């Protein structure tokens, strides 16, 4: 009979020990003590995120990979080098050992890819609902080091990025196609096979290369739940600048665009799990784009617009903090943050 999680596995006793020994220690290769003691520089970045995505395994990934990527990318967006993660598991009674092992293995693989260690963890078990497939929820907290990135010559380079730093004339770059994760998750739930897969990915290579290249990066944000529209609006608001975006430059896979047409969705407000927006000095536009395109997960990057210069600010009716989208037919409209429901349990 297949081994499944029972409430005993959350007891803190022998069954818990068995679970940790059989799965987490094997996958994460770290000693499981009350707390992990790690080396950190003077300044560190800290973040936490919880993951409840359904379905828990989907095309291109699963909740384990997602739980690592989400936290790693949050650390990267402040310019830190992701180093350590903790993982908290809330397991539904009846989750199979094989399923949990798969998820833990996927976390371990993704952590390896991202160059982070999973150093501490916790497990709790909750009763399942009758008739429902038991699920796994994961919380990951992450610690990133702020002591800079080493370039090819061994020199340490660091950046000071923040949401408010966009300057007039800056280029706005999106690191790849939008809506892939959202379309994959929603498609799976609706039994519609969308010819794409989740983009869940750690952006360590991309961010590392950008920073060590010396490109003047002013802001970075990962584009997750609220979609590109929400991130653009937040960055424009934080910097008090006007952003000018070209609709036609926004990269979206044809399959996702078709799916949006059917479902009445707007790629601007679809969730992603391996995409970022990056605002760089105008003179570095071409080089930044080239670096992102040459990095892992960056091949479809596009410059989608720029921050309005002084002359443009005067010639438009737009107010500071506005994001103006120029549409394919040449019309203009302003973009707002995502309003309303979004897609529940997308991550």
């Amino acid at each position, binding site marked *: 009979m297949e081994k499944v999680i029972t409430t005993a596995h959350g007891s803190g006793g022998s069954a818990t020990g068995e679970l940790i020994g059989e799965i987490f220690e094997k996958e994460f290769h770290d000693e499981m003590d009350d707390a992990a003691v790690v080396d950190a520089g003077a300044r560190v970045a800290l973040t936490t995120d919880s993951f409840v995505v359904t379905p828990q395994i989907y095309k291109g990934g699963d909740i384990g990979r997602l739980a690592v990527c989400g936290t790693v990318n949050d650390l990267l967006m402040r310019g830190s080098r992701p180093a350590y993660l903790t993982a908290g598991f809330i397991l539904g009674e009846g989750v199979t050992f094989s399923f949990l092992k798969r998820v833990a293995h996927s976390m371990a693989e993704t952590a390896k890819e991202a160059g982070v260690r999973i150093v501490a963890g916790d497990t709790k078990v909750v009763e399942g609902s009758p008739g429902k497939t038991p699920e796994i929820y994961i919380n990951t907290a992450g610690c990133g080091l702020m002591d800079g990135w080493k370039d090819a010559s061994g020199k340490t380079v660091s950046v000071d990025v923040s949401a408010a730093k966009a300057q007039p004339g800056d280029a706005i770059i999106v690191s790849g196609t939008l809506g892939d994760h959202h379309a994959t998750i929603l498609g799976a739930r*609706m039994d519609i096979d969308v010819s794409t897969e989740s983009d869940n990915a750690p952006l360590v290579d991309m961010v590392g290369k950008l920073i060590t290249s010396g490109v003047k990066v002013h802001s970075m944000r990962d584009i997750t739940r609220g979609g590109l529209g929400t991130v653009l609006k937040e960055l424009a608001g934080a910097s008090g600048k006007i952003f000018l975006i070209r609709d036609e430059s926004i990269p979206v896979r044809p399959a996702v665009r078709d799916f949006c047409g059917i479902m*009445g969705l*707007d790629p601007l407000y679809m969730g992603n799990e391996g995409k970022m927006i990056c605002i760089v000095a105008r003179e570095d536009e071409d080089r930044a784009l080239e670096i992102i395109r040459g990095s892992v997960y960056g091949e479809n990057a596009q410059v989608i617009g720029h921050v309005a210069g002084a002359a443009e600010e005067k010639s438009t*009716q737009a107010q500071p903090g*506005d994001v103006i*989208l*120029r*549409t*394919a*037919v*040449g*019309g*203009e*409209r*302003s*973009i*707002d943050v995502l*309003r*309303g*429901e979004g897609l529940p349990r997308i991550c």
Partner: protein
Amino acid sequence: MADLDSVKRFLKNYDGPEMNIMEICGSHTAAIAKNGIPSLLSPKIHLISGPGCPVCVTPSSYIDRLISLAGMKGHCVVTFGDLIRVPGSGESLASARGKGARVAMVYSPMDIIPMAEKEPETIFVFAAVGFETTTPVYALLMQELTEKKITNVRLLTALKTMPPVVEKLCGDGAPVNGFLAPGHVCTVSGYAAYEPLAEKYGIPFGVAGFSGQGLLIAITGIVKNCGKGVVKNYYPMVVSREGNREAQTLTDRYFEPAPAVWRGLGMIEGSGRVLREPYREYDAGSFDLTEDRQANPACRCSEVLTGRVRPRECPLFGKVCTPMTPQGACMVSQEGSCFTYLTAGRRD
């Protein structure tokens, strides 16, 4: 295909008589905003949103009835997502759900069938709201229910048809010089139904699709036909004069015309669809839902829906009334005028 540049030049430089063009359909309202169409028009061409968002024109008593059904023991209200946050005369389904009422959200009416089969002791009530485009799906649902002899599903209907409300607007002297006729509705019902209206009131109708280009071309056609009682089809790949006969026949098998109450317009004869007599046992009490009392008395949805007031002229717009805190239906539905004007920054 008309040359897009010349179409855009014509619309930007138009200097004839002022034109008020009403887009009847909520999907058009959304597509116009999404494509930034108003920024491409001369100041003499005004686009006005009409009563074409099915959720928006549903009277408050309908929402109130859904809430009371959802709170009844052994009942579950099943609905599309956009209805859940619409305020009735007080509460919305969302707030009622928070207090224990049973409300399920689905993407297709057909989803109610497995729910009903799994829980035969529960009465599942579908919130059947919609125009000519959606009614055939409810007819399919009825077909399935009768064939499978499922007896624990009911429909609370607020089904409506377009031509009678357009007639009412014209008859009441709405300040409209042309109509963008609803592309999706015409796919089902055909555009012949608008010909007598065009003739009677001397107003041009243009059936339009939903792309930026399609909209610009249809608007150009309407402007060029100003003062003429004609119906032109600018969406011929999809829409025919007669429409989809099969869908019409299926609809007529289960539903018949009836008077219906529209928010802001009151009772309009023949503008609704209700279940025919042999199927009335499937009705959840749709016939006496005539009262329409808005939760916030300052809400001007009713005037927005009839083109008398622009969303930005409502004192609540963007202040107390936002998509997160909607005071009226027009701010809830993604096809609602106020939602679209606010989220797409439409300034006209």
